């Protein structure tokens, strides 16, 4: 499993300076020289096939990861052996940060579809961030975002609010990445959305159907068009993003 991380130092195509995600990922606010230093600690990994694990819970922590393409999910397993999906990671987003404290990965990360990553040795990142205030600042920013996302999930919401909020947040994340904010393909299976939002898969399909009937969405298989963003935001209570 862990041998998937077998890696080599960044070839030219992995240069942060040439990456379209530079404005979202670690290099935000960096000058060219700093960026060069960051590039030198980034490893490339081979692409992950659907359902391939990046790391599993309990494995000792050494790297954090930035999504280059595709999507990954983080999964924790409870004492009864049930999976809980704690998050979906889009290009330019970091994961593995939750392991810094325990020095062990507390969740497992799994690819959804074919996806690729940049791997960053945490020790090296820590050292580098001491020297580069811009890096330290962005690292803090990204961690703060994580905290906020997990807080918003803790609020007691109705199923309808949760799904609406999930879609609004996803839409805004796609928008930040230069994709359409109203039309996107949901890479994660319906059962994963249900799991993440702590609902039955049947509830998710029932809600999608109702949203479509109410003219909020248009749905084609796993493609989604948001028709009435305002209504969706109002329904979500705007807790996650607006």
């Amino acid at each position: 499993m862990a041998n998937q991380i077998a890696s080599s130092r960044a070839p030219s195509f992995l240069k942060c300076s040439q990456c379209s995600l530079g404005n979202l990922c670690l290099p935000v606010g960096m000058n060219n020289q700093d960026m060069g230093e960051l590039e030198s600690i980034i490893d490339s990994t081979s692409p992950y096939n659907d359902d391939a694990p990046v790391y599993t819970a309990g494995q000792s922590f050494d790297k954090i990861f930035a999504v280059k393409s595709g999507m990954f999910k983080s999964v924790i397993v409870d004492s009864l052996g049930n999976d809980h999906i704690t998050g979906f990671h889009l290009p330019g987003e970091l994961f593995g940060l939750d392991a810094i404290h325990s020095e062990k990965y507390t969740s497992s990360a799994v690819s959804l579809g074919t996806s690729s990553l940049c791997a960053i040795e945490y020790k090296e990142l820590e050292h580098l961030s001491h020297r580069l205030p811009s890096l330290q600042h962005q690292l803090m920013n990204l961690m703060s975002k994580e905290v906020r996302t997990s807080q918003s999930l803790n609020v007691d919401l109705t199923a309808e609010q949760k799904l609406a909020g999930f879609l609004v947040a996803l839409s805004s994340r796609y928008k930040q990445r230069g994709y359409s904010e109203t039309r996107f393909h949901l890479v994660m299976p319906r059962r994963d959305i249900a799991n993440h939002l702590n609902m039955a898969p049947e509830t998710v399909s029932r809600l999608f159907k109702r949203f479509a009937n109410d003219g909020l969405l248009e749905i084609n298989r796993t493609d989604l068009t948001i028709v009435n963003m305002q209504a969706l935001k109002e329904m979500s209570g705007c807790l996650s993003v607006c």
Partner: protein
Amino acid sequence: MSSVPKKATEGLEPLLNKYDVYGPRYTSYPTALQFNEAFTEEDYIKQAQASNQHLVPKPLSLYIHIPFCKSLCYYCGCNKIVTHKSEAADSYLDYLFQETQLQGQHFADDRLVQQIHFGGGTPTYLAASQLREIMEVIAQNFHLGLPDTLELGIEIDPRSVTLESLTDLLNMGFNRISIGVQDFDPDVQQAINRIQSYESIKDIMDTARAKNVNSISLDIIYGLPKQTRKSFDDTLDQVIALRPDRIALYNYAHMPQRIPSQRLIHTSDLPGADEKMRIFLDSIDRLTAAGYVYIGMDHFALPDDSLATSLSDGGLQRNFQGYSTHAECDVIGLGVSAISRINESYSQNIGVLSGYKGMVDHGNLPIQKGLNLSADDTVRAGLIQELMCSGLVIFSDFNERHDVFFHHYFKPELVKLGDLADDGLLEVTEISIKVTPKGRLFLRNIAMTFDAYFTQTDLQNTEEPRYSKTI
């Protein structure tokens, strides 16, 4: 003032001659000829799982094939077993139940069954109690839609039911029946080995109507041995008098080299090509004059029947049983030779009973062959569906739905459409393709233009045709 109303089919003969070629019926695209044995149970399960993951998963439609018949109708090309042994059916049901259970595991709890259709063979070969048992097993392994939305249909062989057994059947909730009439003429009935009276069919219809069956369909066939314009005109008189909600007017395809029982039909008894075409034209004129709406291909319906209303509101669908009004369903075929359409795939069960039992015995789905649709297959299937159902393709909508640029994607086909347009079968404008009323008689020919698997060889191969004639 007294102008004679023009016949629906006036001036069609030259076109019928021109377009009477061998071609598929497009109950699926790609057609069953493209199914192959590389498609396995594993592929099927993957497709089923993917279909469960749709944000709003499609409802399910179940087709159950009952292959048994008490006697042989010479014209019939269906998968069937002629037997009088009732043990044969009992044993078959055991396997059918196991297959139903195997299938049920692969579909999520929110996949509601909206449609159940029994076909054959002769589904009414089974006693009502056996059909009830099948329904119970389905209910144990699938989630049924609400009774008022569940469409429950069965093909009825009038010779195999009594009014008592029919009442038992209707009490189970069947709300849609189709009755195999074929032809009322005694000589024709003799020549096809299917003898049944007008009265028996009228009795079935009266009983069904009294039980609130909301759609009755009669199947009739043109081109049968001993048929003449005159004899079929009498048959049409009787069909029209019965006033079924729907009429399926099938073309008898004489292919004795493929269907052995058809060798029992004397070729000399068949109506000539010209006579057959006139029977077809007469039928269209008679049925439309009697108030039936021509739906397309073989189907006619009364204007207030859902098939006719969905033709006008765009809700029409085409599937293995012909036209249907149901919103797109995933179709699960159960029983020997049954065809399934799940997500982006077609698959067909093995047609040989012993093989079917063997596979089910091993705990496997009895799939013999199938096809995972390619991206191109999906685009073309969508187009053929639109042409054959609504008869209208709006390029911008189509491009949006399928993520293609129509004029680029179908450039050579658009050129080929020119000939069909010149013959008045369709209108191609900047924004759309529209099938004309005349063109609805030639839907197979129009669809063939977009069939990537259909070759010039198929058009010219009259010795051993892979397809039946289009008219």
